[in-house]
């Protein structure tokens, strides 16, 4: 496929690896923010191409992983009501809530459906006027335009049987929280390319400046990631801390203005709980009062459902780059994709799932 295959050229990847080996003079720790990048790094073995002094730690950018347990419980409560069609991205179905998952809700007779797009859920609402259609709107900024568009369409069409269970999260406040945490080891960031395709990269300027960290907006293919790493390390070696854009084929400085405009019209910034991490101020999106009629939590009266996380799951440390998946005592034993303790073992972008799939044993040997 054009704009995919050429960025997987092994020879160019080897050349980037050699250039990095020449560039690095001392140990550096970088974080890739996005779970999609984590997946590509582990799948293609990019971390194994890097000089030993370079450490990549995996970040919190997996929306499925950070969706709070109690929101899963609320989703299950809604999905169990009669007359409801509960729509979700496939990744969410096996994520454990405090007792059950959406998959169990489906097995128990709930009408839980996997959709490719929130717009498909709107279409279901249109063709099933006698049913209530709910979409589980998880995601980072990348997914916000699609969810905003779904609500906008439903409102325009006067659909009264469509609503969203919103668990939207934002990247910059998470980076801010990581940088401000005591004992932070991360010296530079690969920012998530598709988040910036929507939002642009101007909001990273103050973060980079204030915390003196290089931030490079980076794509998802192996060569993108290698170039992004090179650009961050080059800044570190030269003593610079700036925002740079590796992914200019998709990312413009101001992002996508039409998408940002609709996001701002439909959503407002709210505090948000991150599974395993806790509440981060200003780190989420919720529906604006003008769109309150589309809020599934109010429509189905589930906002009072509370839950606690499994104390044995260390996904919070994994999501903050403080623990590698295979260092968790439950990894691959009490916690597997079939019987996960936490969401990082379930989601295709979860760091634990990526390690389980691509290197279940190797890391034990290498320590």
């Amino acid at each position, binding site marked *: 496929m054009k704009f995919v295959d050429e960025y997987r050229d092994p020879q160019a990847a080897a050349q980037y690896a050699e250039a990095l080996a020449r560039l690095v003079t001392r140990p550096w720790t970088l974080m890739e923010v996005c779970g999609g990048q984590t997946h590509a790094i582990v799948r293609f073995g990019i971390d194994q191409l890097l000089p030993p002094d370079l450490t990549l730690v995996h970040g919190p950018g997996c929306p499925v992983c950070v969706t709070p347990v109690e929101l899963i419980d609320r989703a299950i409560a809604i999905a169990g009501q009669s007359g409801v069609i509960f729509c979700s991205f496939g990744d969410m179905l096996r994520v454990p809530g405090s007792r059950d998952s959406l998959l169990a809700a489906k097995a128990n007779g709930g009408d839980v459906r996997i959709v490719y*797009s929130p717009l498909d859920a709107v279409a279901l609402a249109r063709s099933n006027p006698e049913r209530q259609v709910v979409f589980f709107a998880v995601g980072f900024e990348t997914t916000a335009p699609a969810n905003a568009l779904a609500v906008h369409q439903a409102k325009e069409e006067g659909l009264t049987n469509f609503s969203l269970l919103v668990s939207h999260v934002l990247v910059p406040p998470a980076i801010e929280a990581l940088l401000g945490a005591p004992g932070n080891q991360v010296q530079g960031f690969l920012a998530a390319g598709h988040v910036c395709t929507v939002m642009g990269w101007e909001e990273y300027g103050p973060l980079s400046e204030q915390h003196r960290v290089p931030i490079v907006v980076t794509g998802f293919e192996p060569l993108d990631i290698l170039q992004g790493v090179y650009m961050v390390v080059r800044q570190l070696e030269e003593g610079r801390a700036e925002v740079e854009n590796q992914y200019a084929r998709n990312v413009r400085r101001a992002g996508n203005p039409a998408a940002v405009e609709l996001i701002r019209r439909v959503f407002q910034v709210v505090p948000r709980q991150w599974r395993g991490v806790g509440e981060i101020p200003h780190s989420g999106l919720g529906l604006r009062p003008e769109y309150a009629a589309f809020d599934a939590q109010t429509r189905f009266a589930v906002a009072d459902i509370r839950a606690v996380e499994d104390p044995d799951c260390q996904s919070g440390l994994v999501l903050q780059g403080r623990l590698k998946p295979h260092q968790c005592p439950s990894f691959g034993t009490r916690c597997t994709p079939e019987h996960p303790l936490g969401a990082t073992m379930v989601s295709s972008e979860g760091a634990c799932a990526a390690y389980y799939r691509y290197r279940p044993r190797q890391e034990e040997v290498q320590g």
Partner: protein
Amino acid sequence: MCLAVPGKLLEITGEDDLSRRGKVSFGGVLKEVSLAFVPQAQVGDYVTVHVGVALSVVDEAEALQVFEYLRQLGELQEEGSP
């Protein structure tokens, strides 16, 4: 979750507003996507699509940048080597 895939825009339908849609080929697999946020997209362009919504038009000149950067690194090394 933030996976977005580039595909070639083959056909545009709908008005020039939030209802604009298009047919996109992903390596031969056709999908109907929303063009609400890429009003500038033309037939023949590559668009990057996430959950059924195009988020950008791929800048074909910038797409070569990763190789150009590598070429410059190679030149730097040749200049620096004895």
